[in-house]
C-alpha cells in the first residue's frame, strides 16, 4: 500500500465558526493538511440593503449604512451622506467637516484595534485580544456620549452631524490620544513582537503587488503589498487636503505586514485627529438642507477610504424622494477575492491567519 499520497479531504469551515468573523463559510479541499482549493461561500448575512434603499427615503437609509461595516459605522455614514451631498450640491459647515474627520478617524482606530485583536485571537493569542478590546472600549464610550449608541452610531446627517459632542468628550479624546503610543507598544510587545506570532504570520500568504492591482484590492491589504495608494491622498475628499500625514506602506506582501500596516495607520490617524482638534472652528454643525430631501435627476459615484478598503456609493436619482438605485461597492467584498488564490498551498492554520489579515466584516461583504 502506497502512503505517499493521501486521499483528498473536503472540509467545511463555517458559517458558524470563531475564526470566520461573522457568517462566512469556506469549503476547503485538503491533501493531508495542505490546501489545494478554497471555495468561499458568502451570503449568509445578505439582507438586501440595496433593494431596501429603493423603498426608503434618502434620510431613512442612513441607519442601514451603519449595518454594513459595523465596526466602523461613522465611516459608512460618511460615505453615504457625502454621496447624497455631492448629488444635491450641498456645502456643509466647517465645524461639521472637522467633526466628521474626528469621528471617521476614531472609527478607523477602533476598526484596526479589532483587526489586531481578532488576528491575535485567530492564531491563539488570547492576551492581545483583551488589550485591544479594552482600549477600543474608550472609543465606544466617546461615541456613546455624543450619539447615544455604541456600535451603530448613526452620527451623520445629510448636511452635517446629528449631534454636537458634549463637554466631557474633549478631555476623554485628549487622554485617549495621549495614551495611544503606549497602547501600540503594548500590542507590539504582547502580540506582534512575539516570536511565535511572527512565525505564524511572516512570509505567510504572499499577495504580490501585480496580483493585488489586478484584483482591485484596496485599503490596508493593498498598502501591505507595497502600493502606496490611499484615497485620502490620491483623491482628497472632505478636508483631508488640509492635514499633514503620511501614507504608510510596507513591502513584505505577507500576513505580518498586512497586520503591521494597521499599527502604522493608527499612528497616522492620531496625527490627523490632533490636527483636527487643534484647528476645529466654532459654528453650526448642520447646513440648511430642505426637510424633504429631493435631489435632482442624475447619478453620482463617490468613494471614501474605509478602514478596510474603499467603500463606494453609486446613487441614481429619478428626482423623487426615494433613490432609483443605490449601489454599494464594499471594499472587503472585492478584497475577499484574493483568498482562494493566495491561500492555495498553505496549511489549514495558515488559511485562518490569511483570512484574519484580510479583516473582512461580513456585514459589509454580504450587504
Amino acid at each position, binding site marked *: 500500500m502506497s502512503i505517499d499520497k493521501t486521499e483528498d479531504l473536503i472540509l467545511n469551515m463555517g458559517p458558524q465558526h470563531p475564526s470566520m468573523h461573522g457568517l462566512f463559510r469556506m469549503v476547503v479541499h485538503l491533501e493531508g493538511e495542505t490546501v489545494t482549493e478554497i471555495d468561499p461561500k458568502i*451570503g449568509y448575512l445578505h439582507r438586501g440593503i440595496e433593494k431596501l434603499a429603493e423603498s426608503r427615503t434618502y434620510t431613512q437609509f442612513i441607519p442601514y449604512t451603519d449595518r454594513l461595516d459595523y465596526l466602523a459605522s461613522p465611516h459608512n455614514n460618511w460615505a453615504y451622506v457625502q454621496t447624497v451631498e455631492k448629488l444635491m450640491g450641498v456645502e456643509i459647515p466647517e465645524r461639521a467637516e472637522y467633526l466628521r474627520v474626528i469621528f471617521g478617524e476614531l472609527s478607523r482606530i477602533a476598526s484596526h484595534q479589532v483587526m489586531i485583536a481578532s488576528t491575535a485571537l485567530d492564531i491563539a493569542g488570547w492576551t492581545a485580544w483583551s488589550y485591544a478590546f479594552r482600549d477600543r472600549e474608550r472609543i465606544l464610550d466617546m461615541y456613546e456620549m455624543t450619539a447615544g449608541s455604541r456600535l451603530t452610531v448613526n452620527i451623520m446627517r445629510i448636511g452635517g452631524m446629528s449631534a454636537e459632542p458634549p463637554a466631557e468628550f474633549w478631555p476623554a479624546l485628549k487622554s485617549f490620544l495621549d495614551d495611544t503610543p503606549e497602547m501600540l507598544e503594548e500590542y507590539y510587545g504582547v502580540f506582534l513582537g512575539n516570536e511565535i506570532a511572527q512565525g505564524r504570520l511572516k512570509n505567510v500568504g504572499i499577495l504580490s503587488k501585480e496580483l493585488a492591482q489586478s484584483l482591485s484590492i484596496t485599503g490596508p491589504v493593498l498598502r501591505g503589498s507595497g502600493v502606496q495608494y490611499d484615497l485620502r491622498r490620491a483623491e482628497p475628499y472632505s478636508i483631508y487636503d488640509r492635514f499633514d500625514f503620511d501614507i504608510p506602506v510596507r513591502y513584505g506582501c505577507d500576513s505580518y505586514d498586512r497586520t503591521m500596516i494597521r499599527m502604522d495607520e493608527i499612528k497616522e490617524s492620531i496625527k490627523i485627529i490632533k490636527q483636527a482638534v487643534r484647528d476645529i472652528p466654532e459654528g453650526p454643525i448642520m447646513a440648511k438642507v430642505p426637510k424633504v430631501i429631493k435631489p435632482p435627476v442624475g447619478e453620482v459615484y463617490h468613494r471614501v477610504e474605509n478602514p478596510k478598503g474603499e467603500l463606494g456609493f453609486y446613487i441614481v436619482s429619478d428626482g423623487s424622494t426615494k433613490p432609483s438605485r443605490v449601489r454599494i461597492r464594499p471594499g472587503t467584498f472585492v478584497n475577499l*477575492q484574493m483568498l482562494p488564490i493566495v491561500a492555495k498551498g498553505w496549511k489549514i492554520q495558515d488559511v485562518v491567519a490569511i483570512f484574519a489579515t484580510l479583516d473582512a466584516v461580513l456585514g459589509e461583504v454580504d*450587504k
Partner: protein
Amino acid sequence: MENKELLKQRVEELAGKVNGEVEEILGAIILKIQAPYIIETLTAAKSFADVPCDFLHDLAGLDLGDHFEVVYQLTSWNGPQRLRVKASVDRENPVIDSATRIWQGADFLEREAFDMFGIQFKGHPNLKRIYMWDDFEGYPLRKDYVTEPIELRNLVRQRKEGE
C-alpha cells in the same frame, strides 16, 4: 483641469471607434456603448496614452425598464482620471462579455450582477449565484421583482429527493 480635458479627448476618439456617446453628469465623464463593444472599450481605456484608466473600481447592474446597463467605474492607480463606462444590455437576452480577462477582480462583481439582475457574462470562469442560494428563483434587484410580504413567503426550502 488639464488631465480631464486630455481624458475627454481620448474618450471622444474611442467613442468614434465603438459607436459610443460621451456625456458629462456632475463632472463625471460617461461613455455609453452597446454591449458587443465592451471588451474593445475596456481594453482601450486600460491603455489610454497619458491617462490610463487601469483600475476597475466597481461593476454594477442597473435596471432601466426597457433595458439593463452594466456600469463600470474606471479609475487609475497613478492619476486622478475617472471614467464611467455604461454598456447597454438587452432585457430579453442579457448577455455581455466578461471583463475577467482584463481584470481578475471583475470575478465577484460579475457574479453579483448575475445574481441580482440575471445578466450573463460570457467567458466568466465560474458564473454562479453569490449571495442567494443556487436554486433561488428570480433576480431581486430587477424593478419587476415582486417582494411579497413575509407571511406569504415559503421560508423553509423544500428538500429534494436524495438530499
